[in-house]
């Protein structure tokens, strides 16, 4: 088994109705629960706040951000799978796609 990070990007537009939001939340909870029961979840992960700080460059410049709504990483999950192909397959069930988001599937580099 290898480990993979699921990085969630984008998804909801913020114009969804309360009922749609609740349904979406249910979908996420079901999906993560299902993955967990099948033994694929190393750590269900955490949501991330929108804004923060970006420190960059040799000057260690500090700016507020990132704020790019579309590509912002909104959370992550640490997954255990046989290989990248399986991890990718598992990511397909993610509810983020209902509203057009993306999942970045990144293998944890092995020692």
């Amino acid at each position, binding site marked *: 088994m290898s480990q993979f990070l699921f990085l969630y990007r984008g998804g*909801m537009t*913020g114009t*969804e*109705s*309360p*009922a*749609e*939001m*609740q349904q*979406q*939340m249910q979908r*996420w*909870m079901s999906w*993560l629960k299902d993955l967990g029961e099948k033994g694929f979840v190393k750590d*269900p*992960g*955490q*949501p991330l706040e929108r804004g923060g700080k970006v420190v960059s460059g040799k000057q260690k410049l500090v700016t507020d951000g990132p704020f790019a709504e579309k590509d912002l990483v*909104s*959370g992550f*999950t640490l997954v255990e799978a046989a290989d990248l192909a399986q991890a990718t397959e598992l990511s397909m069930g993610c509810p983020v796609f209902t509203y057009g988001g993306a999942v970045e599937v990144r293998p944890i580099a092995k020692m």
Partner: protein
Amino acid sequence: MDLDGRFFRREAGRLTAALTRLFGVRNLALAEDVTQDALCRALEVWKFHGPPPNPSAWLMTAAKNRAIDVLRRERTARTFAPELARWLETEWTLRSTVDALFAADAIQDDQLRMMLSCCHPRLPEAAQLAVILQVLCGFGVNEIASAFLDSPAAVEKRVTRAKKVLAASRSLFDLGDAGEVAARLPVVHRALYLLFNEGYHGASPESAVRGELVQEALRLVSLLLDHPTGQTASTRALAALMCLHAARMPARLDEAGDLTPFFDQDRALWDGGLIAQGRRLLDQSAAGAEVTPYHIEAAIAGVHAAAPSASETDWGAIVRLYDALLALRPSPVVALHRAIALGQHLGPERGLEAIAAIEGRERLEQYPFYAAALGEMELARGRADSARDRFRHALSLARNPTERRSLEKRLAACRSPRP
């Protein structure tokens, strides 16, 4: 922890009501934005680990914090609720004012204020309903459109115009002004009645949202009843009417979502609790001299609810009640319902006579259930051929698939008539 399926929607209504009180009705859009932010946040955070032990309180805190940010940031740029202006100006009183406004009983009042504000006499009824559904009940534009068989664009336009009218008023409705409340109540009653009817009569598989309208109407009328200013005999009559109809809904439709004929409905499916509640409210509504159409319609529903079986219905009492309703609110449809009851009470010949005597009968010509009523009476007389003609005509007037299917069934029943 499993959230009730309507949780987000209900909380949306509560939060927007409280936030509008805080920001002032002119900033209704801002209040809605803050509510949306709080719900989005909840979705983003709860999806990983599930809702917290007290999800309502969590949402409220999220909304409050965001509201305080907004108040601080926009203090110079906007005017907020005029009566609260002083308290919102300084950090000293800001937090405690916001906290007080979000207390449970305060929010209850806020929802009532919002309801009364949305029922603005200058707004067309369709606009009142749309804005109530969006702002108070947390429905999205698509959901409202689907419930009323309208286009989302039309609903959007209607809601936008309604909100402009609301925003133009100086402030939210003043619950303390008894005269104003008394004047506004009939408008609120009418809106809730229409909302209920839309859900009750529109119960078709095409839109599950319509069943939700019934629930919302019940919830809003009980909100009205919980407040001393709303506790009038008319409100009780309206609430009784809703309970007594809603109680019998499970028997009204079969599994396919088709209308079950009156005499075939399984009364064991009735909600006993709602019937008891309806009867209690009906009794209470008799206090005072006022008799409104709601009183009479509730009483008719009460007569139906009291019958252990369809054949034991006290049709005589129903006819007398329809007489009273006609005296108050003459209309061909009411006269038709009276004639149907009369037909049950004294036989199809008398029923047909009563139909023939309806004033303004011509206005019923496009109404499928007028033709269907004639069909039922012909069938009851043993005139299968005439009945078939009537039902065929009724079928041609059917306005939606549910009506079509139920009329097709009655037509089929003519081919193999019941003994």
